[in-house]
């Protein structure tokens, strides 16, 4: 019974891990907002953070 409970616990944590992997993929792969694509290059490098950091790189390599 304890092991069944733990199996359910591990199943639950696996769902969280896989969901986070999907979130990671979505964040890394999401399309840039149209307004950012049309702005001049110099105005796009602002702030620090996950979302902004993604834009910085799409700027650099885009």
């Amino acid at each position, binding site marked *: *019974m304890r092991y069944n409970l733990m199996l359910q616990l591990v199943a639950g944590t696996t769902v969280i891990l896989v969901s986070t*992997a999907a979130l*990671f993929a979505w964040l*890394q792969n999401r399309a840039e907002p149209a307004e950012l694509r049309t702005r001049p290059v110099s105005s796009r490098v602002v702030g620090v953070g996950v979302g902004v*950091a993604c834009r*910085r790189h799409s700027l650099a390599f885009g």
Partner: protein
Amino acid sequence: MKRLLMHSPIVVAVLWIVGYLLLTLLPLLVLLLYPPPGGRGFWIEFSVALGFIGLAMMALQFVITARVNRIDSSYGIDILLQFHRYTSVVALLMVLVHPAILFIAQPETLQLLNFPQAPWRARMAVLATLAFLTMVITTIWRKQLKIPYEPWRAIHTILAVLAVGLGFGHALGVGNYLGLFWKVVLWSGIILVSLWLIIYVRLVKPWLMTRKPYIVEEVLPQQGDVWTLALRPLGHEGFTFAPGQFAWLTLNITPLSMREHPFSMSSSGECADRIEFGIKAVGDFTSTIKDVQPGTKAYLDGPYGVFTIDRYWDSAGFVLIAGGVGITPIYSILLTAAQRRDDRPFLLIYAVASWEDITYKDELESFKENLDLTIVYVLRKAHDEWEGETGYVDRSLLAKHIPRHRGSRHYFVCAAPVMMAAVERGLFELEVPVTNVHMEHFNLA
């Protein structure tokens, strides 16, 4: 209030799980800071994320199995090892799904399986995956594959180090997410800590143990094909322990050989200068105990385990349920309680094959002089004059003997897995609170 919360098994479990998830996911999520360019598609990024999570889970396995007392003391080593087994399978699935998605999303990556022509980063991935797969297969089906315990442990350690080391080498070689120096430092730190833990457990700790040797004082036969192995510390004070705990025993060889075996102590927890183990001859190693000569050197790593009444000082009493050699830790609990003149009621339900198989019978009866102890023997094969319990420890037998106020006691069960499962089910059906039931599998391997 804080103390009450920290003693609740549910609160402690939630904290550990949250900690585990954070340790697994944070190294992945920091990769989103200053990430490489996107646009490779959702499935490629999803596959990469699964690879990193799998690698982090693999590295965390070293922490789970490092015998860190602070971690073990929450739930016990057998629960942790079971968690280790389940999460290893999950990690393996992630590691296998990681390339599978790549092969489907970008079929040209199948060329990376051409080992002689593939780049090193791909070769390392293949070797890491094979090492991990072999490790899981040889662990789950060890007995069916007839791999002896001692070589299996050595192979398990080597494959684990190879899988994590090569897996990390693969991530470094690809370099897409580990292109920044500080990210390499962060992930290298995680991998180095995990590798240090295995070096500590397999090399440093055994070396420290060589400085605290023990000597076999005597080997005494007991009823039920059980042998008492008595050890005396040599040149040091030994250790005291909470009755019911166990230690890893290395006999007649250096502890660096990784040929150690877990056994419950059967002596009093307060007697540091003579530590005894009750060992039943059931396997290759245990069958040789009877031939061990006094004067043989031994080494102990312990004490470990949470199967002890010392954690429940405010319990109104205890119900102890033993099957066969599972009596060993329970005997230690009763012996220590008798020496302490514990005034709480103890009920011992002791299941054995026959009257002749009852281990420590005279000693158990003698405890009644100093303890409020009731013993119920349950014999599978009873002689004609036997008027006590027969058969198996099931719900009806438990209902007849355990106190009416179920939650007023803590219940300790140590037996073969089949009996443990039956007793656990019976106690649950009798509405014994789950948090009051404590179990220990005496076969951790």
